């Protein structure tokens, strides 16, 4: 049994709680990457609370699965998952992006327990994941490697250099997820610099691809399992998502990439997320 027995329903509730914790950590009055953290939340919850084989009490366990957050600006969502897994105390979440905090604005693996790589400047995470997968092969370790990219990030040339490398080396221990929320910092991806047809691009580069609803926990789990079964080539999961998911006034609005929310907006967001959590019952 590779994965802990956790139900889709439990994961959904967990994701709702994670969203609330993200927003609480960010708070009102400060710039934060709300939209892209919330679009990636379900994917991260499925990874950290079901898929990844980890030992939070032994973070350097050599056989652990690796996860690289290539879209580093969504790291608040990852911090919440790491804290819930026990890599560091939940109380630290309140220090997000403040002076002296272990929780930097973008991932710094030397500061945060559980982070596997430095990202932030976009386009580099897939290459790192490739290197981890190649190292796993060379050292005979059986771990899997996961990497989450933003859709706007796929405009970076290095992503496609790395896509070629993964296919060339037939890295079937690697799964890439693309958070396809259709928005980037300055607007819609298809208006700024079109990336469609996205799945066809990954296929053309030699990848097995899966298209899913990135907020449907059942589909996420099935796709992660199916990707792990792919042999002889890497697998990409293109997850259709909604930027700002879970907070009605943010959903799909390109204005919530990296912004300050007011006290009123903050209260409204918290109320919406608390209502979602309550809908799962005690």
């Amino acid at each position: 049994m590779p994965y802990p027995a956790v139900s889709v329903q439990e994961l959904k509730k967990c994701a709702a709680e994670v969203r609330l914790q993200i927003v609480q950590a960010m708070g009102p009055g400060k710039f934060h990457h709300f939209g892209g953290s919330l679009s990636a939340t379900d994917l991260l919850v499925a990874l950290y609370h079901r898929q990844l084989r980890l030992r939070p009490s032994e973070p350097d366990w050599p056989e652990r699965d690796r996860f690289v957050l290539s879209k580093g600006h969504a790291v608040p969502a990852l911090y919440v998952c790491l804290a819930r897994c026990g890599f560091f105390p939940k109380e630290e979440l309140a220090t997000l992006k403040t002076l002296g905090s272990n929780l930097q604005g973008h991932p710094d693996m030397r500061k945060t327990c559980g982070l596997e790589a430095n990202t932030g400047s976009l386009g580099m995470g897939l290459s790192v994941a490739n290197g981890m997968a190649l190292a796993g092969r060379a050292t005979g370790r059986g771990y899997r490697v996961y990497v989450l990219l933003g859709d706007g990030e796929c405009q970076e040339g290095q992503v496609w250099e790395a896509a070629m490398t993964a296919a060339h080396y037939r890295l079937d221990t690697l799964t890439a997820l693309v958070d396809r929320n259709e928005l980037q910092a300055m607007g819609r991806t298809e208006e700024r610099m079109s990336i469609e047809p996205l799945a066809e691009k990954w296929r053309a580069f030699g990848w097995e691809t899966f298209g899913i609803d990135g907020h449907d926990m059942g589909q996420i789990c099935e796709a992660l399992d199916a990707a792990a079964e792919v042999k002889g080539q890497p697998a990409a999961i293109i997850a259709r998502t909604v930027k700002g998911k879970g907070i009605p006034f943010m959903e799909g609005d390109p204005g919530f990439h990296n912004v300050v929310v007011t006290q009123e907006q903050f209260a409204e967001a918290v109320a919406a997320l608390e209502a979602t959590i309550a809908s799962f019952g005690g």
Partner: protein
Amino acid sequence: MSELKGTRDGYGEALLQLGSEDPRVAVVDADLFRSTRTADFAEAFPDRFFEIGIAEQDMVSTAVGLALGGMVPFANSFAVFLAGRTFDQTRQQVALPALGVKLAGSSAGITQGPDGATHQSVLDVALMRNLPNMCVVVPSDAEEARLATRAAAQRAGPVYLRLSRYETPVWREKGAPFEIGEVEVRRPGGDVTIAACGVILGRALEAAESLQSEGLSAEVLNVHTVKPLDVDAVIASCERTGAVVTVEEASTIGGLGSAVAEALAERASRRAALRRLGVADTFGESGSADELLEKHGLTAQNIAAVARELVARKS
């Protein structure tokens, strides 16, 4: 006189030795394995050699992943691409987390020769020296490059090795000790200090020889480690001689010349006259290595002439 070799040749020999001694040593290359001298490693250890194609950025980030997977990766390309094109990958993923990724910048400097300005890395030392946690080593001959490569593999953090195709005799005595971060006094003297790094060291030694015949005693420092600079040793020599010429076949802005100037300005208790020889705020161009060195004043004659001037200025 021993046979002529480039520092890249000593690097390739060391890689092969390291490969058989340590199964963690891995190599990534960007379609230059014959030129970067990783071909022997590739043949001997195909499971630990990764061709990444003409994609230097992917190559450096892949090396990062290899390091995070427990390996000791050496990333290879021409110095001009490695230091320039992958600067952001190196900044964010190698230097910031102080990862044990070894960057081997090959065919460095104006001694790259005929390929011209686009392929001549005159800025690599300055760029790499500016990165926190980075160690910058510029070996002066093939034997020193072999030792530096072994030392780089042993060192915990990132290392930039600046390697040349320019062929010189091996001046270093077999078995002479080599420590990253320690200046080697290659020739003791009292009238002027010549601080050099890289393949130009031989010309500095020749200059010292010719000065000797005029009755001037030049101390030649082999500053193979530009960062961390052995400040104490450099300052001690300059304070004693009162004059220093820095010699490098790289930009004088940000390289060894800058490092020595900064150390002198802040640390020396006695004034010392300084001249920096190197590529002075300009790009390279096509030509033979020797022609280009001459054009930029990097000949034994000119080093001696500048040293003589400085000594005259002292008195």
